[in-house]
């Protein structure tokens, strides 16, 4: 009804000749307004598109008519349809001399085009012309357009003019010019790096609008580089003070609050500057205290400012009085009936809790209320708070709640977030491993496809490593409980892939370990998994490898293996699989089934997933064989560097070439045609790979696969590296190493690469520990104070989670700033007298102050800061570069050493490679082809 009345009003207005409102336009708007469904709206818009396509092509469309068409185009795009057919007309309209038409043209262009659109080039010229206009409104329109349309490449075309406009007599122009510069800074910081001082200058503009706008770019600049702007602390404080003292024009008041949006921006900037800076924090404390006292908490805007004060206090180093004031404000928020204020209160609590952990306790009930509130927004905010206040004493309650909530929602974005938080908290504070596994099961079951793969690896490692203390009993209990829970879950339909991988792995490793479940039972379950998720190759791979382990353990313990018919058919199916990975696994499984107990035990030792696998780079186990070969007249091995040509040394050490592709660039290859050509040099330039490797390596690769199984991440990394190293087709399995030999058998040089196969994986774990643990401890200490000590104790004692370092707490904890803080600039002292001279324009005063200071010492200071900083950083970077260089050269020499030292075996190495040697020395009857090539 009300609508109809206004339509009447508008129609009356239209008939009065309101500018540009033709009957046609009014009808269109009316029909869109009256459309009762999206479909109806679409119909209207589609017919409108047809009409406009025709009309825009008519010759000599009157300008006013054209403006209307452009707005109709805006409608079309706003309602979700493409209006690109009319873009060019909007561009043309920007050329118009009439201000309203021009501005409408610019508006439409900014709504239609992104900065990289081809048509922009047609506008740049117009913008340049308009920036020179005498009419400041035209200049403003052009500056508006600049903020939307200019990209990195076109910045230089308008930059000089924009800089000039910073001193325009009209404040509106100065304001827009500074925002244009802000935009340039965002798009391409280097383009305006020499103009940064302008932002400081405009802060002292005598128009509060320009000053207020300048706070936006300054906020960006300060968040990028706090230290360079420490000198402005007192200026900002003084501005804030003047604002609160109502020295700004009344027109900036909002609901009796003086310029609240400027106040809030200032508080945000102060939070940045005061973070970890005692000096700055002290300068701010006075005005912050005033704000708390003065702010009218009965209005929304007053509360908005209070909330911003709380945020500011949570960032700076506040004095106890301020903390108390902030806590009071928070409790007012929490006690309010308004959900909005409760939300702000919970958020504030989450921020303040970092500084005073016990503040939450007095609000327990309010927090629980918010948690149980049906309002999703409030609930999520409360979970965020709980997440921040979790400790080992409350982790169970909190994580259980989180999981319940996670299950209840279907917003994947948030589900992912809350799942990762659950995992994080569980990893960090788990009271028992049992609980940890149960929790992880729930997370995997309900959000398995959303969690990071690392989480799965961590869980597997936890189950494999157990408590880390020598408590085998507890470990096996843990594993049994994991196995039991998985056997229960496994028949659930539609489990996430990642979870199935974990299940398969655990069942493979520990399914039969306890003797509670028979091999055929477990293997049946694994076959079911492979069958039920036959489209998921990763799960199938895990299942097959798990089967292999189950059978291996059976064989090793001397029991007879009955391969279930379904397993048999699974293996047969996979033997013909299109996936080389699955095929390889199936072949390996088949080969393993034919081996005897001793070989199998060596290949897949029981519960050895945590054992380090030592790879003998020297291949010393072959020494005996080499000796024999040389005695019977074979050529001795000549290392690659001694060799200049290519000759057929392949039969010596196929193993040598194992990981060579993992080298990055093989410069060595180019050194081959050296002048010192030994007589034996063959004329062949290209090595002819010989198909020497054959299945003889099968057992070795099997063992490698088991290594891979035991710590998945290791060889995956290898695979990745190989991918970069060499454009071959290798899957990530260890099987690649055998095929690798076929591909580039001879060319490779000695052992560096092989070594990396064993050292690399481990190094992929280790860096985490030193990197995160200390930080976590520090975080924990600063987050929770006294109670943290027990937790860090717990963590260090709970050695089972050494790498649970995936935690990334937001590091907003106030840190001690190591850099010496500048003494407060004179600005503050000078600033006080101006504040007392109330008759004068405060901003003019301030400007004068700033100017003089920049003439005297201010600018020097700034320059000094720069000149100080610059050489320091360069030298350090040079240093680090140099040290890196020397490091890398050290590394090189090391590899050279290892290359040259390659030769006779050491006793140690002999022991190390028992595993591989056994296979080589004791070929089983089932493997007559083992090393056939070597034996000739």
């Amino acid at each position: 009804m009300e609508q109809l009345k206004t339509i009447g009003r508008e129609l009356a207005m239209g008939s009065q000749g309101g500018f540009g409102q033709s009957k046609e336009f009014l009808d269109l708007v009316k029909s869109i307004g009256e459309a009762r469904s999206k479909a109806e709206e679409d119909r209207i818009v589609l017919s409108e598109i047809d009409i406009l396509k025709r009309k825009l092509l008519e010759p000599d469309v009157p300008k006013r008519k054209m403006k209307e068409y452009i707005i109709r185009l805006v409608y079309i795009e706003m309602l979700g349809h493409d209006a690109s057919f009319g873009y060019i007309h909007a561009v043309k309209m920007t050329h118009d001399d009439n201000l309203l038409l021009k501005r409408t043209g610019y508006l439409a262009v900014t709504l239609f085009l992104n900065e990289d659109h081809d048509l922009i080039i047609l506008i740049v010229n117009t913008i340049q012309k308009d920036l020179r206009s005498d009419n400041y409104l035209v200049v403003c329109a052009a500056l508006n357009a600049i903020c939307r349309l200019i990209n990195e490449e076109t910045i230089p075309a308008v930059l000089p003019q924009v800089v000039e406009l910073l001193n325009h007599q009209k404040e509106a122009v100065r304001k827009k010019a500074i925002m244009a510069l802000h935009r340039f800074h965002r798009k391409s910081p280097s383009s305006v790096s020499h103009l940064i001082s302008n932002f400081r200058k405009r802060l002292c503009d005598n128009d509060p609008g320009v000053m207020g706008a300048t706070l936006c770019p300054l906020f960006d600049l300060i968040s990028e580089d706090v230290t360079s702007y420490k000198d402005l602390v007192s200026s900002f404080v003084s501005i804030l003070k003047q604002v609160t003292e109502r020295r700004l024009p009344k027109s900036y008041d909002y609901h009796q609050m003086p310029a609240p949006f400027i106040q809030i921006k200032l508080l945000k900037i102060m939070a940045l500057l005061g973070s970890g800076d005692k000096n700055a924090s002290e300068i701010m404390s006075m005005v912050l205290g005033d704000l708390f006292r003065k702010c009218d908490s009965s209005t929304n805007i007053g509360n908005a400012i209070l909330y911003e004060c709380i945020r500011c206090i949570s960032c700076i180093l506040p004095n106890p009085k301020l903390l108390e004031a902030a806590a009071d404000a928070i409790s007012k928020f929490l006690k309010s009936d308004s959900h909005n204020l409760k939300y702000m209160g919970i958020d504030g609590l989450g921020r303040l809790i970092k500084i005073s952990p016990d503040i939450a306790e007095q609000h327990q009930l309010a927090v629980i209320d918010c948690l149980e509130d049906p309002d999703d927004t409030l609930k999520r905010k409360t979970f965020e708070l709980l997440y921040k206040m979790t400790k080992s004493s409350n982790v169970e309650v909190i994580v259980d709640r989180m999981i319940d909530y996670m299950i209840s929602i279907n917003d994947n974005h948030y589900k992912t977030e809350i799942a990762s938080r659950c995992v994080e908290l569980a990893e960090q504070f788990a009271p028992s491993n049992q609980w940890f596994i149960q929790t992880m099961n729930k997370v995997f079951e309900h959000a398995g496809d959303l969690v990071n793969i690392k989480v799965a690896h961590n869980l597997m490692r936890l189950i494999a490593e157990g408590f880390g203390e020598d408590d085998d009993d507890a470990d096996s209990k843990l594993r049994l409980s994991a196995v039991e829970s998985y056997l229960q879950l496994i028949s659930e339909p539609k489990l996430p892939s990642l979870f199935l991988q974990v299940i398969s792995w655990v069942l493979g490793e520990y399914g039969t370990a306890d003797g509670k479940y028979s091999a055929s039972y477990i293997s049946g379950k694994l076959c079911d998994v492979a069958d039920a998720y036959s489209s998921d190759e990763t799960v199938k791979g895990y299942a097959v490898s798990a089967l292999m382990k189950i059978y291996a353990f059976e064989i090793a313990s001397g029991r007879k293996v009955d391969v279930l018919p379904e397993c048999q058919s699974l293996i047969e199916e996979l033997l013909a699989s299109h996936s080389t990975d699955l095929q390889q696994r199936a072949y390996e499984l088949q080969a393993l089934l034919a081996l005897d107990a001793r070989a199998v035990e060596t290949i897949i030792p029981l519960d050895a997933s945590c054992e380090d696998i030592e790879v003998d780079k020297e291949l010393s186990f072959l020494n005996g064989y080499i000796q024999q070969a040389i005695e019977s007249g074979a050529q001795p091995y000549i290392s690659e560097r001694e060799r200049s040509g290519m000759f057929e040394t392949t039969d010596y050490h196929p193993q040598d070439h194992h990981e060579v592709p993992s080298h990055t660039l093989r410069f060595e290859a180019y050194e081959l045609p050296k002048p010192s050509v030994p007589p034996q040099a063959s004329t062949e330039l290209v090595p002819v790979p010989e198909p020497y490797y054959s299945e003889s390596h099968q057992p070795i690769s099997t063992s490698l696969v088991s290594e891979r199984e035991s710590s998945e991440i290791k060889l995956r990394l290898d695979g990745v590296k190989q991918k970069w190293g060499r454009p071959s087709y290798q899957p990530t399995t260890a099987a690649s190493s055998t095929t690798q030999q076929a591909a580039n058998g001879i060319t490779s040089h000695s052992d560096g690469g092989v070594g990396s196969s064993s050292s690399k994986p481990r190094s992929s774990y280790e860096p985490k520990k030193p990197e995160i643990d200390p930080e976590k401890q520090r975080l924990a200490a600063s987050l929770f104070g006294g109670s943290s000590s027990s937790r860090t104790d717990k963590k260090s004692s709970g050695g089972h989670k050494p790498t649970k370092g995936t935690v990334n707490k937001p590091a907003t904890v106030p840190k001690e700033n190591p850099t010496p803080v500048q003494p407060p600039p004179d600005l503050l002292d000078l600033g006080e007298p101006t504040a007392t001279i109330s008759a004068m324009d405060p901003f003019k005063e301030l400007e004068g102050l700033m100017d003089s200071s920049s003439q005297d010492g201010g600018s020097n200071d700034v320059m000094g800061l720069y000149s100080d900083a610059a050489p320091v950083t360069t030298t350090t970077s040079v240093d680090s570069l140099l040290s890196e260089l020397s490091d890398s050269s050290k590394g090189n020499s090391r590899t050279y050493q290892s290359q040259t030292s390659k030769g006779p075996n050491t006793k140690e190495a002999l022991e190390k490679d028992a595993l591989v040697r056994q296979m080589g020395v004791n070929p089983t009857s089932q493997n007559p082809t083992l090393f056939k090539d070597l034996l000739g």
Partner: protein
Amino acid sequence: MGIRFILMVNKQGQTRLAQYYEWLTLEERRALEGEIVRKCLARNDQQCSFVEHRNYKIVYRRYASLFFMVGVDDDENELAILEFIHLLVETMDKHFGNVCELDIMFHLEKAHFMLEEMVMNGCIVETSKANILSSIQLMDKAH
């Protein structure tokens, strides 16, 4: 960045004004608007005026038949944005006099001009109603 977009949508979920401060394609805008509107319209008056959506926070406020929705970054002050919406409405009210949905529809460009004065680069740059409206009034006078 601060403000990512400003939407005005009526009770039926029809867009009445849309201004984005980061580039989204037509399809992305359509999808985003659909999702947000569905989320916000489903809420009642007692609930928070804030909704999390993907990586945005939506602050919304309802005036008669029209919803004003502002998409902001995570670290924005929600209450302040809520009041910013009100300031926008007050400004429009000052200009149009008892502003309603149809005023915005018939004078879409003017509503945009006001926003152009108030927000640049996703930041609130002008909050004085007199300053916001002065250029529009000057343009009106010229015609």
